[in-house]
């Protein structure tokens, strides 16, 4: 039995090495358990598995082009937004147009899509002036560049100091289709020319 014992030791070492990935794939042996099944047990005729082909495309979600929130009279085109050089999020140039954060999810993708809009301009109300009035259950609709639409339902809203902005809850990746609408709120700091707070509306796929 000396020979089998030697082979067993060899096999054990070989498997351990394979498990830690030190055996290149080209040198790995095909496990031979299947060889033990009698030829008579093998399926006859053409094998369906031989015709298998993997899916090599998926249904991509188109970019958003328009946001509608009938309850507060919002019907705005959407402009793509990135980040500023200092790492903060860019905002729409036009106070009457909302923007979509293009480095996050597209609305309807499995993840949080973020749409930002101004609460006011220097002279009056802007596109998200009434965002603070949204309540749980309100319907929000986003139209996409391919003509498709996706609906969301508001689940809640918060007003938070910008210094304690919940980056995680707004931008962190999940795989659940959801929407965050962001604008300014609270008191205006005239010294720096900005509002002190942000209003964030959370919505899930309807």
């Amino acid at each position, binding site marked *: 039995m000396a020979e089998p014992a030697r082979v067993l030791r060899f*096999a054990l070492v070989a*498997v351990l090495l*394979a*498990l830690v*990935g030190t055996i290149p*794939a080209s040198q790995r042996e*095909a*496990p*031979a*358990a*299947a*060889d033990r099944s009698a030829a008579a047990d*093998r*399926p006859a005729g053409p*094998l*369906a*598995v031989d015709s*298998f*082909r993997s*899916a*090599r*495309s*998926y*249904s*991509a*979600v188109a970019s958003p082009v328009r946001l509608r929130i009938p309850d507060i009279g919002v019907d705005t085109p959407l402009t793509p937004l990135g980040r500023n050089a*200092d790492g*903060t*999020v860019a905002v729409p140039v036009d*106070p009457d147009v909302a923007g979509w*954060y293009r480095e996050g999810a597209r609305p309807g993708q*499995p*993840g949080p899509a973020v749409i*930002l809009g101004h*609460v*006011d*301009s*220097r002279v*009056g*109300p*802007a596109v*998200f002036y009434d965002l*603070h009035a949204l309540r749980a259950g309100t319907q929000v609709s986003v139209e996409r560049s391919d003509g498709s639409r996706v609906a969301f339902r508001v689940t809640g809203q918060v007003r*938070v100091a*910008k*210094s304690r*902005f919940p*980056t995680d*809850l707004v*931008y*962190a*990746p*999940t*795989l659940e289709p959801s929407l965050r609408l962001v604008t*300014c709120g609270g008191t205006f700091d*005239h010294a720096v020319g*900005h*509002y002190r*707070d*942000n209003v964030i509306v959370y919505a899930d796929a309807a």
Partner: protein
Amino acid sequence: MSRQAWCRRTLAVLVVVLTGLVAGHAAVARGGRFPTVAAPATPGDAAVALQAALGYHSVLAADMMRSRIRGDEELARAAENAVGRNTDVMRQLVGALLGADRAEQFRLLWTAHVTALANYSRGVADEDNGARDAARSALSTFEGDLAGFLAAGSQGRLPRDAAAAAAYLHVDHLMQQADAYAAGDYARADQIYREGYAHTFELGETIANALIGPAAVKALRAPAWRLRSQLTRLLGEHVVLVVAATRAGATNGPDFAAAGEAVNANTRDLAGAVDTLFGAAAAQRFQSLWADHVEQVMAYTGGVAAGDATRREAAIEALGGFEKQFAAFLSSATGGRLPVADLARTLVMHDQMLLAQVDSFAAKQYEQAQDSAYSTYGHMGDVAGQLAGAFTGTLGDRAPKGGSQTGYGGTAGHHG
């Protein structure tokens, strides 16, 4: 047997045994002993472990029912034994939350529903409406019993009606997929199989929230946990669907086409997830590599079914290429958070485990095939956790800093 053949055989057996041991997550002890599950360290760990165990329960229960419908008693027995081991994993998880007495209560009522599901599939196979109705009645009793158990364990956090509705849906998925399978509507059977698997993750979250309480409610809202849970579901589904497809492929079963399409649906879902996380270009690269991976596992299966060692070896060779490229892709996507060498080892193990399962199944070593599949699933759960952590860190670094400057002050003092 030649020395070379003996060596190959030894190697194959050891791959199966060692991969099972290395997998760690709910590693299955054989010979009548129950597996041991470490008490979860955090509410989030407990919740995702519960989700994964419930997900696998739905898969094993469906396997058991389908085997009975096909009249494959040996395979049905192996699946039933695996369901029993999975039930014990859940018993231990429940025990960690509610104590040993309640855990035993859970085991008894859960086992009763597994028995009723087995009886239902026998009724379907034998076209015995009386047996089916009796099983349905037993399952209805189970739904009420489980709802009562969860409502009591939740100390009022989970209404009995909500728990009963969740239990009903779980049972309904399993019965419906069995009915469709028996009718030869494999596409519908697999669609329900996928829905049932996904639902068990929702059920696991519901149960975790109910039994763990406020600590879980907070932990399970965290985006990092949600991503981990979702990746565990998607990648776990990859394993269970590939296992199902390779088994149908190895026997050239009539359900293979639908099983293959279910794998492809999961592949598309994974690509969509990568698009969300890393963009369209990364998703396309991911899908190209992932598609190669799945095709080579199927090619290996074809080689096994045909008894063609050359084809099997060619598939292994091609998988080696996938492992290297995919490791490089993931490492790059995560900015090096996940080292290429570690990823490559993980992928080698994943492929070896899948292939070992094919070998065991083709050799009609069904208990071993079940263990191998369970270990592969558990290993993938661990991988999903690591990926979720790396993705969260990488994308967190890229998130905008602070709040938005979305106001110029023209209405300051006049709005809410």
